[in-house]
């Protein structure tokens, strides 16, 4: 079973993504901030991370290269309400950049694409 880490400071969004991905048959771990997420990247065998950008403390763009530094080749989807970070070189290290939506179809399709 593939394991996905969902990182988002918004409890509702985190739970929504968690539930829907579990329904799809994935093992899902969650973190509400980047520091906790980095600990999980270090200790858990992960296949994919869904990463919010704007979070209190360390933001997603700072966490991303650190995650890749810990686990080379780790797949990451940036999932954010904002489009302006697409210009940041840091965001280019992600495998996908998605704009948050209540409809998770696009996210789920991207997850499936990256994990097959």
């Amino acid at each position, binding site marked *: 079973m593939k394991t996905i880490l969902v990182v988002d400071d918004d409890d509702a969004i985190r739970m929504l993504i968690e539930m829907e991905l579990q329904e799809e048959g994935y093992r899902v771990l969650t973190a509400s901030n980047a520091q906790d997420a980095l600990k999980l990247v270090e200790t858990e065998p992960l296949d994919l991370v869904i990463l919010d950008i704007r979070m209190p403390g360390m933001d997603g763009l*700072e966490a991303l290269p650190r995650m*890749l*530094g810990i686990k080379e*080749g780790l797949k990451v989807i940036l999932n954010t309400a904002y489009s302006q970070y697409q210009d*940041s*070189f*840091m965001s*280019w*290290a992600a495998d996908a950049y998605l704009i948050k939506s209540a409809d998770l179809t696009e996210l789920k399709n991207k997850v499936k694409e990256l994990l097959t």
Partner: protein
Amino acid sequence: MDPLKHLTTIVMAGGRGERLFPLTRDKAKPAIVFGGVYRIIDFTLSNCLNSGIRRIYVLSQYGSLSLDMHLKRTWDIMRPELGEFLYSVPPQQITVDRWYRGTADSIYQNLKILDEERPQQVLILSGDHVYKMNYLHMLEFHLRKEADLTVAAVPAPRREASAFGILHVDHDQRVIGFLEKPADPPGMPENPEMSLVSMGVYIFAAETLVRELIADAKRKDSKHDFGRDIIPQMVGRKKVFAFNFVNPQTGQPGYWRDIGQLDAYFQAHMDLLGEEAVFDLFDGDWPVRGQVSLAPPTKYVTKKQPVEITDSLIAAGCELQEARVERSVLSPGVRLGRGVEVREAILWHEVRVGVGAKIRRAVIEDGVHIPPRFTIGFDRKADASRFPVTDGGVVIVPNNVTLEAP
């Protein structure tokens, strides 16, 4: 429009320089003394100044203190209020917890610089090459070709070329093949005895560079090196061009040396000497900035015999007494006693040579005191029992040994 406005320049200066041991045992390779009053990195930085580039990042790592001290003493000349700078950047260890894994990784780890600068092109240089090159000409070529990557290239004898990346180009200078350090380098079609080698001087389209570095960082089988990984990956897929490095005055291939090992270090010094030096330091159009020193003029002292100097470079602040110096390079503050003979030798700062000592084919580190009547370079076995001796027979005298008078 000034094309340099959209250029970010990065000098890689972090390598360990193992093949220059023992000269690199306590300092960075780019900080090694060269040509009496220079450090190797001065040639690349002077190229930048002479090309009009005054915004420079120097990526340091191994032995960075020696490099930082030199940059502070000699290169603290940029004017921040005009937007100029020369920053020495050690590994930040912010995004990753490691040293640079290779040349490409050193840039990858500093992507933040590019994210903040947002250049259109990135010029990547090495701090351990000796040459005079106008990077603006290369940038103009890169822009004209609308290249993703331009690699500076120069022909080198085929038997020496296996230490470098070898380029295969078509009639339009497009790179169609790249071999990193092949055992048997292919010759150039028009001259089979020469190979076209990469000088380790690159201009990238900035966004291409970022994408290639990110992709490379994720490759598990990569050594994260420009020559080994990034360039071979791009050839055939991206627009990679070779820029022929020629001397603009003669139209002949320019002088370029990678100071990769001790014999090359020695030979590059010999290239500085003579009436028609292979590599001319006396070019008013292309000044090389070296150490600024308060040393007095050099003093030549004679009682009975004259001081005899032929085909040599003698820095300021030396004191030579009835000595004979031939085809040698002396850094500031060297003192030669009466009857001393120095031939084909490189003496660093403050070396003292006692009365009657004889030195041949040697590199002597700063502060070494050679006792009276001591000989170096005349008895290979005796030399090898005391000092490192190169394949080319050059004796290296490090300054962590005490020499006993014979």
